């Protein structure tokens, strides 16, 4: 069984990763909360004190400042973080200006939420390391989940190649990974298994705990209620799920 802590912090996991999130709206708050839950240090920045107060307990530091002020950003220790997520919603001009400031400050990774095609184009030109369109990306995921209800999630790793999270097709349920012949028959690889394990909590009530096995053993048997994570070419993944 393999467990991992994406943010490190364990004796073998190295130093805790540090992130800054600028913008405490719905998207920024969600990013900050998830990073904190994963054990990362998170600095959350916004110019709205009320928004920050609501999220203060969830992050390492909640700082009220104007992120277009380079000196204030530097004083907040932003140059020390592993990555900055810029989540300013519809404030396009501010988002562009702050992206430029962050790149000039030498931030290793700047991830910016874009709100339009024009915004996206400008961000690519000024050196944003990653640009996300949350609404568009979620729209594509929802549409794909409607067309392919067995796909729970997917990530495009390269054009035409995806990692999908899906229920196991009927013909491999009850078989070991070796017997499923995913690679030789379908040309795809099952890279992880998610399984719910029954436990009792401190109050003696039942609870299901998710266990994730990364690179499962060839003898691991696939159960009906498992979730499998599979990598491969898009057309071969579609064939595998049939």
């Amino acid at each position: 069984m393999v467990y991992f802590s994406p943010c490190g912090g364990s004796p073998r996991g190295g130093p805790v990763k540090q992130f800054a999130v600028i913008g405490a709206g719905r998207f920024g708050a969600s990013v900050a909360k998830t990073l904190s839950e994963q054990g990362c240090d998170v600095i959350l920045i916004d110019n709205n004190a009320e928004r920050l107060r609501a999220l203060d307990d969830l992050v390492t530091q909640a700082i009220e400042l104007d992120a277009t002020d380079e000196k204030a950003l530097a004083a907040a220790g932003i140059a020390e973080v592993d990555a900055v997520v810029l989540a300013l919603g519809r404030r396009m001009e501010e988002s562009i200006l702050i992206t430029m400031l962050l790149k000039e400050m030498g931030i290793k990774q700047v991830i910016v939420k874009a709100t339009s095609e024009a915004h996206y184009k400008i961000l690519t030109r000024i050196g944003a390391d990653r640009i996300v369109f949350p609404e568009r990306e979620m729209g594509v995921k929802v549409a794909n989940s409607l067309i392919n209800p067995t796909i729970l999630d997917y990530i495009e790793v390269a054009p035409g190649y995806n990692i999908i999270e899906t229920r196991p097709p009927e013909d491999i349920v009850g078989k070991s990974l070796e017997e499923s012949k995913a690679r030789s028959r379908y040309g795809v690889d099952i890279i992880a298994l998610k399984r719910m394990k029954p436990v009792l909590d401190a109050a003696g009530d039942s609870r299901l705990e998710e266990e994730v096995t990364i690179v499962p053993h060839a003898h691991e048997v696939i159960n009906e209620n498992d979730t499998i994570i599979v990598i491969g070419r898009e057309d071969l993944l579609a064939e595998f799920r049939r």
Partner: protein
Amino acid sequence: MAAGKNKAQFSAKMSRASKEPAALLALGKSAFLSECYAEAVEAYTRCIALDPRNAAAYYNLGVAWQALGKPREANRAFVKALEIDPKHKAAQHALNLLAAY
């Protein structure tokens, strides 16, 4: 063969516990931990038939339905647990998670 034997053992335990809600609840939890989720549902359902105000039985029933991949049934059980005990944190948490998916 082994599954048949386990089923027979479960039925014997069920008939011994048939008039004791607490024993049925414990039997359901034991079946749940053994990943015998259908048996767990059966034990909790019988427990509820004897003790319809047992919030814990409804909550545990919901978790067993979840394990069987039946979110609607799970949802109904968690709602019932909360109707009986509005402060049942685990049932509220489970409902929130179900709503998120």
